């Protein structure tokens, strides 16, 4: 099992979500975050110049069984590329999972 952490621009969410739903991946956790970009930006507030280095981004987290990982990454890429192509995916190994209600553990908790 793998845990995918995806960082996107917020405006990409609808397309990426749709692309994931299209390949039957329906479970994820989303949170608004701040991310860096290749360059910082200059701004000005009440006459004071300042540099902005953190921008609004969206972080998605998906727990997947191994055979679904490539499908998911392709779907994310497809949705993200429709809307600018920004974003990164980070993959870590999941050693265990649990569905609290049933107490089930492992692969069958991820459908």
């Amino acid at each position: 099992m793998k845990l995918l952490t995806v960082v996107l621009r917020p405006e990409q969410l609808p397309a990426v979500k749709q692309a994931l739903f299209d390949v039957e991946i329906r479970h994820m956790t989303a949170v608004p975050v701040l991310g860096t970009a290749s360059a910082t930006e200059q701004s000005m507030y009440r006459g004071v110049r300042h540099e902005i280095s953190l921008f609004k981004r969206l972080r998605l987290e998906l727990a997947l069984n191994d055979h679904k990982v490539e499908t998911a990454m392709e779907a994310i890429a497809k949705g993200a590329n429709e809307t600018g192509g920004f974003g990164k995916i980070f993959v870590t190994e999941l050693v265990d999972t649990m569905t609290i209600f049933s107490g089930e553990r492992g692969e069958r908790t991820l459908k």
Partner: protein
Amino acid sequence: MSLVAQVGAETAAEAPVFDGLSTMWVLLAAILVFFMQAGFSMVEAGLIRTKNAANVLMKNLIDFSLAALAFYAIGYAIMYGTGNSIVGTTGWFLSGLDPSVDGLPIEAFWLFQAVFAGTTATIVSGAVAERMKFGAYLMYSFMITALVYPVAGHWVWGGGWLSEMGFHDFAGSTVVHAVGGAAALVGAWMVGPRIGRFNKDGSSNVINGHSMPLVAVGTFILWFGWYGFNAGSTLGFGEPDVVARVAMNTTLAPAMGVILALVVSWMKYGKTDLTLALNGALAGLVGITAPCAAVNSGGAIVIGAVSGILVVLGIGWLNKIRVDDPVGAIPVHGLCGIWGTLAVGLFGYEAFGANSDGLLVGGSASALGVQAIGTFSIVAFTIAAMWVVFKIIKSVVGLRVSEECEIKGIDTEEHGLEAYGGFQIFDAE
């Protein structure tokens, strides 16, 4: 209950004839000025960080409450009591006074004056926001409304030496705003800048205001209330055209203040900064406060324009001298208060109640001279008096919250709550 008996002197007064129309006007104006407290608290809360927003709201609530009580017990007597050309000395707790002041019931006249005292006090809260101790602020509020403001007021409006000289400050560019602005300068300077506001190399950092809707609604409320502030300073409705002229000027000057603040910030910084445009409205309002009755619409427009420029430059200048004024109270009320007072000497008409025609509308420099003496003596007095006041408070309870409290935010430390409790995280927690 001896207090009740003691201070209840007005109970016994026989009712003279009052001017109904004028009384209604002054009461309504006072009510509008009262509402400016809401405006100040929203502007100040919006321009600071969430972690101190409840604290600044508290300060605005308390300074008005203390002002009402202090001005009732002490301030009114100093400002309007019979006395000498420096201070009044009769009418403590409003007792023993004539029930009528030029056709107005004393209670109406008092209320209008009391809300002015409250306004003066509250100007400072924004400038010292996010770092001044609540207890220290309580003491300051009491001192300014019981003593400092009433003395300045006595000089100009209470029959003191400046009124004898012919100094013209119709609604208080100097008496209220420059006094408040000067007190803000002393307070902000003595309490020092917020942690992280200035760098060692002298450059400034941005500390964002947390809510533009609050700043905007606050500014609109202030503008709304300012019609009471200026047009109510006629203290009656005997001359409807004067009141109307004041109201018109109180519209044109801030409108022009907005436009110029916008243009200057656009040219200087490349962005049309909303907070500066809103400050421009307030700058125009402060600028027109003294000359609102004495100038015509053309004068109001020029005064507003200069105010709009002044406020943007003034905010830049404060950064240079490393005084941290989160809301711009010092340029808005201090600088534009002085400018507006001087402007009477430039654009005022004798026919409109100024002492003599202004320098730029065919008169001599004499009016300007009197205006300059008046505004500078009052600013100097205020700086001196507030320096003493803040020094004393500093030595008694300390001016500034601890570094830990400043980092965590005053709201949780002093008031046990957050401005947006359970908001960023969940309600259910």
